[in-house]
């Protein structure tokens, strides 16, 4: 969970100062901020449970790409605003369903972070859903771009519902609610779900990240790795 929010938060922050409108710029920066805040909670907990004295900064800045367990979807480049918002919509939809279930987890720390995060993510999903609808059901050009964004990113959806030994919950069980929100939204957005259910995998297990992860980590980690004693 922490690696997903970290990598996506970092990705979204690349938009800061480049948004298509001031409101969108501010919104993306705020969402990135929420995600980075959630990262701190998740990775501090992970470090605490690991018991080796690593905190969230240590885990964020001093691990190599193959140690990251984020979904392939979140490391995909921003490309245009349409791709960014489609990626956000797919992630938010999955994220909210995951947090809803984790909000009832038996571990009270996990439950606490999930309950806190789901309040924020409710707003994220409402916004990305509205934008996908507005741009999909927009002009001919915006519709085309949103459809091509969906075609590009849909092959990263399947991985979100794979369950492995690190998962606290059965991820496949979240698929029906995800699919329901997806089809309702695509329907309103006049977009068509690609026919092929093929999907890439290897992000959440860390075995086969795309080349994009190394680049984003290089940007994010270069300062603390070059100057390990650097302080704010």
């Amino acid at each position, binding site marked *: 969970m922490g690696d997903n929010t970290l990598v996506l938060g970092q990705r979204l922050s690349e938009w800061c100062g480049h948004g298509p409108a001031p409101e969108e710029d501010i*919104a993306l920066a705020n969402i990135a901020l929420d995600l980075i805040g959630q990262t701190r909670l998740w990775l501090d907990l992970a470090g605490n449970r690991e018991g080796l004295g690593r905190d969230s900064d240590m885990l964020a800045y001093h691990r190599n790409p193959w140690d990251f367990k984020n979904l392939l979807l979140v490391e995909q480049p921003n490309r245009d605003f349409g791709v960014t918002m489609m990626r956000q919509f797919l992630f938010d939809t999955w994220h909210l369903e995951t947090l809803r279930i984790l909000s009832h987890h038996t571990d009270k720390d996990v439950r606490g*972070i999930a309950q806190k995060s789901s309040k*924020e993510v409710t707003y994220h999903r409402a916004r990305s859903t509205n934008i996908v609808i507005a741009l999909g059901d927009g002009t001919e050009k915006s519709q085309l771009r949103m459809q091509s964004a969906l075609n590009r990113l849909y092959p990263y959806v399947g991985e979100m519902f794979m369950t492995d030994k690190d998962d606290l919950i059965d991820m496949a069980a979240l698929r029906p609610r995800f699919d329901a929100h997806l089809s309702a939204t695509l329907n309103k957005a006049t977009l068509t779900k690609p026919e092929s259910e093929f999907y890439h995998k290897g992000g959440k297990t860390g075995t086969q990240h795309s080349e994009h992860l190394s680049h984003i980590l290089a940007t994010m980690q270069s300062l603390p790795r070059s100057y390990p004693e650097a302080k704010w």
Partner: protein
Amino acid sequence: MVEGRPSTSVVWKWLADVPDPEIPAISLLDLGVIRDIQWRADTLEVTVTPTYSGCPATSLINFQIEAALSARGIQKLTLKRQIAPPWTTDWMSDAGCKKLEAYGIAPPRSTGSPKQCPRCKSNSLEEISEFGSTPCKAQWRCKDCLEPFDYFKCI
């Protein structure tokens, strides 16, 4: 300097004078982020809950609590971060909501939208963006006086 150890109710009163760093019109108590104040032996423990996980004001809030209490003579202080139960706008005081509106920010409402324009009180409003100048606010506009304004989102 404080003579002896102040009671926790006195400390609550002191914190009612500490403004929120982002919205100085309201205090930290109005915002509802101070959850508990306890003495643990000779150390004062203040439990603070963040509004949003990534809110940059969180560290500033902690700093202001430290500064305010140290000015009152508290020497041993620990700040405890508590995220569960999560902060909710229901914890904002009624006085705080009134101060927010007077300051030009529409207070949170469970309906998810502001009641009226904080300037001209018109009910004819439209949303500009779900996110405003900070994660806790959305941007709205009044269709009568045409002024944009911040709305404190209900979470």
